[in-house]
């Protein structure tokens, strides 16, 4: 009789802390290969066209940055939430709220032109995301509601509100009844970084700046220290004189602002108008990005690129393999599953025991 036990480590393992995302990615590839062979595809060539081919052309690297920008922006904000033990699952709704608020200017005042239009749009986008994130924060602090449920449910509210807007008041009168607003005028469009070679816009630069700023705050300032203390032990945080309620607002406001910024950057930079579907679930995928990046904003930059690749791979797979682009969602789910599973190795080690009491081998 053999038995596998997991044994708590006396101290968390720095090695597995660094290794865990890579183990997770490796296991994801294996699971993907199995999945492809069940579907009757050659796993090697399928994985190649899924994960390598999108990186072989300049234009598709631009697409990668376009998709990575909102993922990184949102995940950086979520890392502040998750580190402080605030489980904001509603970034998708905050993204939509930001997209709507940021679109007020180009949709309602389409004739406004000038350098000031874009900054105001971005600020309104952030304000919209913040305002929307305040709701679950307030409910949590005031009524002790579970923020996972409230923030998630507010996503559906935001999605339906957007749907109602673009089919109703904000619909483009000359748009042949498509559920879309007017095309934004050029001064309301977030410009490309390098126009000659592809579509990547300044949203990616904003994401990098946000990641570095939040990384600095988390690792160097008292504010970041407060976030980590309260996230790990609320009682020790109270002993330190930190207020959990204030931090809940702070974390939701930061992540709401960044999700809102991602929303308006997506609308203004990648789409150019407001539509019913402005996001293929960036707000949810960003949760995976945050964990794959170990809740470290610099790690999140890398993780954002990886998850962006899964979106591109999904599109490529649709064309070259003839499988649904929904396969991207499957890959994202598998990654999250393995990331969380691999994290167990940071705090526990695996021991294989045969019969009663005799430890035979120590693995991991």
């Amino acid at each position, binding site marked *: 009789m053999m038995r596998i036990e997991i044994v708590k480590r*006396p*101290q*968390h393992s720095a090695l597995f802390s660094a290794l865990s995302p890579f183990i997770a990615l490796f296991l994801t590839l294996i699971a993907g290969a199995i999945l492809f062979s069940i579907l009757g595809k050659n796993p090697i060539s399928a994985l190649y066209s899924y994960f390598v081919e999108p990186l072989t052309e300049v234009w598709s690297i631009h697409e990668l940055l376009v998709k990575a920008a909102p993922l990184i922006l949102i995940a950086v904000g979520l890392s502040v939430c998750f580190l402080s033990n605030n489980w904001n699952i509603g970034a998708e709704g905050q993204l939509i709220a930001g997209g709507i608020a940021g679109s007020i200017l180009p949709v309602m005042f389409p004739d406004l032109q000038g350098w000031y239009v874009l900054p105001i749009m971005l600020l309104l986008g952030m304000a919209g995301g913040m305002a929307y994130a305040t709701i679950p924060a307030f409910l949590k602090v005031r009524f002790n509601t579970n923020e996972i449920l409230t923030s998630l449910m507010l996503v559906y509210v935001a999605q339906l509100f957007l749907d109602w807007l673009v089919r109703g008041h904000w619909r483009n009168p000359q748009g042949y009844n498509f559920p879309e607003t007017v095309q934004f005028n050029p001064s309301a469009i977030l410009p490309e970084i390098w126009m000659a070679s592809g579509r990547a816009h300044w949203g990616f630069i904003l994401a990098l700046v946000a990641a570095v700023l939040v990384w600095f705050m988390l690792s*160097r*300032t*008292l*504010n970041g*220290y407060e976030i*980590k*203390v309260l996230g*790990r*032990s609320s*009682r*020790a945080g*109270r*002993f*330190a*004189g930190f207020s959990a309620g204030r931090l809940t607002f702070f974390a939701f406001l930061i992540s709401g602002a960044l999700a809102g910024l991602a929303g308006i950057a997506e609308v203004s930079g990648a789409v150019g108008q407001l539509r019913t579907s402005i996001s293929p679930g960036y707000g949810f995928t960003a949760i995976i990005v945050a964990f794959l990046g170990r809740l470290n904003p610099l790690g999140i930059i890398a993780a954002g690129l990886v998850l962006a690749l899964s979106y591109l791979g999904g599109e490529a797979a649709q064309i070259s393999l003839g499988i649904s682009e929904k396969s991207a969602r499957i890959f994202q789910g598998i990654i999250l599953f393995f990331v969380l599973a691999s994290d167990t190795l940071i705090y526990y080690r695996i021991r294989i025991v045969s019969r009663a*009491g005799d430890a035979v081998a120590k693995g991991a």
Partner: protein
Amino acid sequence: MTGTTRINGSETPLLEASKLTKIFGTLKACDEINLTIGTGEIHSLLGENGAGKSTLVKMLFGALQPTSGDIAWKGQSVTVSNPAMGRSLGIGMVFQHFSLFDALTAAENIALSLDEKTPLDTIAARAKEIGQTYGLPVDPEALVGDLSVGERQRIEIIRCLLQNPDLIILDEPTSVLTPQEADLLFVTLERLRSEGKSILYISHRLEEVRRLCDRATVLRHGKVVGQCDPRAETTASLARMMVGSDIHIIDRHPVEASAPAQAALIEVKGLSQKPRGPFSVSLHDIHLAVRSGEILGIAGVAGNGQGELFEAISGEVLQERPDIIRIRGTDAGRIGISARRKLGAAFVPEERLGHGAVPDMSLTNNLLLSRHSTDRKVFLTGGTLKLVAEASLASAAKRIVTQMDVRKSAENPDASALSGGNLQKFLIGRELDRNPSVMIVNQPTWGVDAGAAAHIRQALVDLARSGSAVIVISQDLDELFEISDRIAAMVHGRLSESVPIEAMSRERVGLMMGGVDHSTALANAGAA
């Protein structure tokens, strides 16, 4: 003392463990331990925290399997593979932490642990009978939630006696009792001995071991370092065996009488507070005042509102009016813990990991926990950015580690990687390092080994004598008598008047801890 020790006779001992060894990973928790328990003796197992007492006892009871070595029970070699087998052999155990359900009656709790399906009425009758025989009065119909700790312990003991064991193992039984309750327990134990039952008594309280036990086996670092008749030893010689060196005697030079009329540095006036949760105690009209140079000891059995009092004084919980708490003459009842620290107060809570320190954060980060507001200029730079100054934190941590003799394995380990005693030395040193004028410590040496405890107590005395006001909340009466200038007792959320140490006796503090009215206590003490 009616018991006789028959171990020296020719008959086989009740239990004989030879070369019992238990290895956890690389740690030898028990190293070739030999232990012999005769019929009808109270045998004490002495040792500091981490000496291997619990591991040894768990192996005898069947809760752990020895790595090597033999256990002989009544002359027969046995393998105790689980606690049920231990019970069927006749080994009963009363644990330090009770396993009783609050919402059930005493009889129902006892029924839960019995293997066969005995009707509840029979159990209640037998429990009552055993209780009467052995001086363990318990109402079988009473809800456990309503009972005192001493009564709960009686239920555990009755539960154990119902199995009719030949050997009863008691793990630190008096740690939760008042002196009077402990006296009652000793009477019961002596009666059991007179009936020929054997008792293995685990304790680090040397006085009671000398009073009660026939023989003692002393453990240190997993090894037997001595066997003796504790009645022939002194407390000091037992302590020396246990610790391996002489224990530092606290130097408690008297308070200087030259400054008598000083105002109190910390005052609590009429503090009342409703319970904040289902397991919280309410506080009733608490008054106290501590002057410069003084240590006020607050005695009491755990769970009588000490934690709530601590959180009220620290400012983790605010008061209704500002003047309920005064720190150095300033009303502080409505300001938070950081502002109270800035008034010169320092706090060390009972729980180290998860309250006084964040377990998975380094020592330097934990240093910042209570110092970020008071020592802002030193530990934070960059103006409003409030950047954490790692270098200043590291040098301050180093200073504290040297000052308090904190032993650690790495340069800057996580708090959870330190032993309880070393972490406590660090947490006390963290506050002493800023020379607080008021210091409140809850259970300063709980679970701390004797050497570290002496160090901590001396540091508290020195702090007070240098002009600070110190409040020490403790369950350890020896500790309070050693360092306090005045002692008050806490019971059911009320605090008694404080009594100067010269006028205080163990009997009197015991009565105060038991909730006997102060005037009655005085009368009793006078009559005694």
